[in-house]
């Protein structure tokens, strides 16, 4: 292959890796950080100096989330300056007319015209924007809007057609992973926890066939020197029928047999995990609403023992009162 061909393949492989990264970290990156994290990932295949990623409703009349990435001036100032001419932004009108298509600002007007624009000119000079690639998508039914702009500061490096195509290609995936990231943040624990990211699959010799991003993170935190393809020796035991749980210092690992394989799952320690079996029984009885006396009778222990366990439960979970206890146990969901 020629050098140009190799470069093409390398770039495509890098784009493939960015996509994999985006989809693989959907449940791992906190919602408040996802856009920033995703834009930094985008930098691996597309060079830019600053960026803007907004989500809103009513076709942009209401904005409920905005992220300004690496701006020279504080984000609040950027938004205030932009807000002043937002209604007349020629670029916004162009992307609105071509949803899903990445528009290069020079496709709309030549650079000189942008610089001469009474509002856009000063805005670009102040915020060091020489070139912009902007992409927008909206849904006419829900009126939800999403827009991502990436900016370059130097006048010497306009975006190429290939870069425009690449941005347009990645845009729907940035939106899709952002949507899933928000969904993952809202999801409850329990069933939904077992996703490709938090799960792993191994055969009966402990050789991994799959390990999700989150699983690997927790595994490496628990066993810093681990390297695949085998499960760490300490975890091999959980494939035995009676020892399907491994509670480590940082995480809890569980295993469920599935024909010739085991489906593994990892989650971080929660305060509930620090309860002893006796304390957990007391917690469950308390959550049912029984009095201390009735609870002690149900469990066949002395009231004083019940008292002691109860106060330990509240202390370990850092809560007061049964309502909080009910909520905490409900959040923990079913045990796998």
């Amino acid at each position, binding site marked *: *292959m*020629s050098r*140009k*061909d190799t470069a*093409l*393949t390398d*770039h*495509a*492989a890098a*784009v*493939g890796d960015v*996509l*994999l990264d985006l*989809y*693989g970290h959907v449940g791992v990156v906190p919602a408040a950080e996802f856009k920033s994290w995703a834009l930094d990932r985008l930098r691996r295949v597309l060079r830019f100096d600053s960026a803007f990623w907004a*989500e809103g*409703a*009513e076709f942009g009349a*209401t904005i*409920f*989330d905005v992220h300004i990435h690496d701006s020279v001036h504080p984000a609040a100032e950027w938004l205030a300056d932009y807000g002043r001419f937002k209604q007349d932004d020629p670029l916004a009108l162009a992307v609105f007319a071509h949803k899903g298509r990445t528009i290069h600002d020079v496709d709309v007007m030549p650079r000189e015209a942008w610089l001469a624009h009474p509002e856009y000119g000063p805005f670009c000079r102040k915020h060091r924007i020489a070139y912009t690639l902007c992409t927008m998508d909206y*849904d006419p*039914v*829900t*009126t*939800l809007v999403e827009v991502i702009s990436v900016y370059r500061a130097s006048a010497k490096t306009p975006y190429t057609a290939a870069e425009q*195509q690449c941005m*347009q*290609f990645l845009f*729907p*995936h940035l939106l*899709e992973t952002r*949507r*899933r990231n*928000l*969904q993952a*943040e*809202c*999801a*409850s624990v329990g*069933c*939904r926890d*077992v*996703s*490709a990211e938090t*799960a792993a*699959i191994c055969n009966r010799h402990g*050789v*991994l*066939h*799959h*390990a*999700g991003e989150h699983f690997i993170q927790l595994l*490496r935190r628990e066993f810093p020197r*681990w*390297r*695949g*393809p085998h499960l760490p020796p300490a975890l091999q035991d959980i494939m035995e029928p009676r020892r399907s749980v491994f509670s480590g210092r940082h995480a809890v690992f569980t295993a469920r047999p*599935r024909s010739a394989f085991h*489906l593994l799952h990892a989650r971080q320690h929660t305060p509930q995990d620090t309860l002893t079996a006796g304390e957990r029984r007391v917690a469950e009885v308390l959550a049912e609403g029984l009095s201390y006396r009735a609870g002690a009778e149900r469990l066949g222990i002395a009231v004083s023992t019940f008292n002691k366990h109860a106060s330990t439960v509240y202390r370990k979970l850092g809560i007061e009162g049964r309502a909080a206890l009910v909520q905490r146990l409900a959040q923990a969901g079913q045990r796998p």
Partner: protein
Amino acid sequence: MNRHLYSDAAGEFILALHRGVDGRDASAFRAWAMSEVGKLIPHDGAFWLSGSDEGTHILDSCLLGWPGREAEWLAAGTEDVRRQRFGIAAEIVTTRSETHTALFDSLSLYRSAADAEFSAADQALLSLLLPQLVAARRRNMVQRMQTPQCAAESNAGAYAICDTQGMLYRTNEAFTALMLLEAPQWQGPWLPWREQLAATRQRRLSFQGKEMVVHARRAEDLFHLRARRRTLLDDLSPAELRVARELAGGASYKAAARRLGLSPSTVNNHAALVYRKLGVHDKVTLAMRWRELGGTAGERG
């Protein structure tokens, strides 16, 4: 044919791969995925190898295009022998290794026509697609191992997110489609039940429309919404649902009464309503209708 590397078609395939909705079994998934790859990069045969320890240990392999000849393929000594035996004129290959798990995948595409070289764009596109194919195959594996309820709760279905005032932040296509079914003139971003959402302090609530049922669950300052089509089962009262579940599971009236802590005559009354509302006459058709409508399993009598 001039194929763009970063095409809309490739992008949509990648979206579909990562959505991984249904519970296809391993070979059906692979057949579908490779046929879609074939629309982007036409080929006559393919070989997908998954391994461990950077490929020294084979976990799984799949040969497409030459049915029944996989053993012969793996036994062929050298690449030249293989090419000759299988009539291969052109090929491209891409590989991928994972750092921590030492998992390894390689995908090769082949053409048999004499003048059908793969282009540089074909090679580049294959490199872009392999990580997505690998991720999708693994997700498919995990999904098949989950219990049916867990699998049903994954990415499939109609989802939305709104704030505590009832303004939509996100929907997926399925949710929007259901909303339009319910109210063809609806336009967002406000949901029809905004007043109830704003007024409630509960963590969970449900809304029943003419065509759809929505379950809302609070998560900090947002609501997570799951929606589905309304079925006849939604016309049953909670007590009727309980009786229906028992009877659909094969329980006798007496056993159902005992298990539900009701008198036999109460069960009779509920059952009569269940039969009428679901339009059935006996337990067998009830069981069939129950399953059709997506009823969950009860205990066997």
